[in-house]
């Protein structure tokens, strides 16, 4: 096991970095997309319900199946990987963003409007900052989940640690096959922990003191 890692340390580090970078970038993209969608739908009961429904159903779609479906229109490589990871990352964030925006007391919105803040200003200065802790919780849930999804998308030749797992599995019983799988799995777990710590730190820095629990 030690030999396996020692021989391939540069390769493993590079794959880890790629894995991490894929997840991080997709999370940012997913956050932007879901907050935008949440902002568009949260005032409307039926639209929010629809978005929550899609979010719930979407989570039941096996990531592997989605990759299979995407290979036909977009082919192999990074594109299907980004699409699949972003899709799954967006679902919990969307759900939390809608909940967060809906849970703000109506009186606070009323007083914001009452002192002359426009709809947009109210959204940017009051609603999103107040919903931010809930949105961030969604981002952390997403981060844990898509670390695993990102390993699966390596099937479509996307970047990352998933390569070790699939290579190991495809020649199970062969030389170093188990080491390869273990390296991939442990690497993903370690990355997930690191990312969670980073997000925790971001949460500390970006949550206004007045609404910290």
């Amino acid at each position, binding site marked *: 096991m030690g030999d396996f890692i020692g021989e391939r340390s540069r390769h493993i580090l590079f794959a880890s970095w790629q894995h991490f970078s894929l997840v991080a970038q997709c999370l940012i993209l997913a956050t932007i997309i879901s907050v935008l969608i949440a902002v568009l739908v949260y005032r409307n009961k039926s639209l929010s319900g629809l978005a929550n429904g899609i979010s719930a159903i979407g989570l039941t779609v096996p990531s592997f199946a989605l990759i299979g479906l995407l290979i036909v229109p977009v082919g192999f490589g990074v594109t299907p990987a980004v699409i699949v990871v972003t899709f799954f990352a967006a679902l919990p964030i969307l759900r939390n963003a809608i909940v967060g925006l809906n849970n703000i007391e109506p009186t606070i919105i009323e007083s914001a409007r*009452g*002192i*002359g803040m426009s709809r947009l200003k109210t959204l940017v200065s009051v609603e999103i900052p*107040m919903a931010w802790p809930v949105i961030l919780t969604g981002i952390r849930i997403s981060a844990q989940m898509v670390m695993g999804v990102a390993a699966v998308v390596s099937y479509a030749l996307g970047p990352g640690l998933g390569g070790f797992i699939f290579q190991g599995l495809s020649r199970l019983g062969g030389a170093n096959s188990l080491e390869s799988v273990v390296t991939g799995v442990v690497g993903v777990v370690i990355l997930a922990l690191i990312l969670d710590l980073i997000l925790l730190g971001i949460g500390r820095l970006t949550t206004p003191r*007045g609404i910290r629990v």
Partner: protein
Amino acid sequence: MSENKISENAVAQNITGASIMLEEVTKTYPGQKKSAVGGLTLEIPAGSIVMFVGPSGCGKTTTLKMINRLIEPTSGKIVIDGEDVTDMNGDELRRRIGYVIQAGGLFPHMTVAANIAMVPKMLGWPKDKISARVDELLELVSLDPDLYRNRFPKKLSGGQQQRVGVARALAADPPVLLMDEPFGAVDPITRQRLQDELLNIQSEVQKTIVCVTHDFDEAVKLGDWIAIFNEGAQLEQYDSPERILANPASEFVENFIGSGAGLKQLTLTRVNEVELEDALTTTPGKNASDVLSQLQGAGRKYAVVLDSRGRPLRRLDRRQLSRAQIIEGTYDENMPVVGEQATLNDALDTMLVASSESALVTGRRDVLTGVITVQTVMEAIAAANNAEDADHEAPVGLNSGAINVVDIDGAAAGQGGESA
């Protein structure tokens, strides 16, 4: 006519408020046959406090929110300070009108200072002007700027949040202040103090204040004019508190005033209208035995400890003084204090709660102005009851030619009616 002009100019120097005119304002919600507000015409004179009262669902809040167009009127015109604001940009209009809701409606993720600075920031004031204004406003609402500037709303009591809410509404010095049941969420004693404070603030700033309440006693205490609404914002009576209590316009008003009318003299007479006794005052750090001998010399029961700005900190009786060496400067929360614009009813309440036969009276910025005793209150009631018979011929200040078209002042109605 010329007389009116002169008197208007004389008071205009202090009044920073603007007059508000609602002309045939109607609000009908889609899908509802009956209007929430039906053809209401209402004049709100500059620099006065007008209270909207009525049962819940009568349209008083809807009427209030149409003044700053949080609710857009279906038809009719809103004129503020002679300017038709019915079609101007709603956000810009609202920046020129203060707005206070129950519990202050503060933004929990912003500090007290950031909350107050919100409107001046939107109006593009320079930074140092904003921070100076924040401190000035915190002083105005009796909160120490150094202590409260950087606090978050959740670290404030309900009364303090409400004060910050008022400070935020006054931030850009708007001529008009709208308040929607501002003191509904605080306990009775805090409410009374906040009401006193609002009256003190109003005597400094002289805004036009429109305030919604369901509490008729609050309306009598705060209002220069009271508008009593029935369902659909049908105006039942619009007049001064004295005249509404003396001459209810309808059975509805009579029922609404309720049994409390029996003690109306207590609610109508204010602390600053009766003769107050002087207090024997001292400051922290003084020698207690000196104060005690002064107290005995003057034949008083209490000495009042004042802080550097003349605000009362605590009362010390003879026994406390004889036990102490040096006068303490700590603040006693249970000390009975009323504002000078509080009603005698409030004063009596405060004394009863504190089981004391006297209460301290404070004026602007909580400065001590004197002491009121139970005896003073009783004498005032007796005197008022004697005078009441002479007062009986009060003019009816209501002009109800057409439904809802009401003139504010009975005396001026004859002349001002055509020009308004």
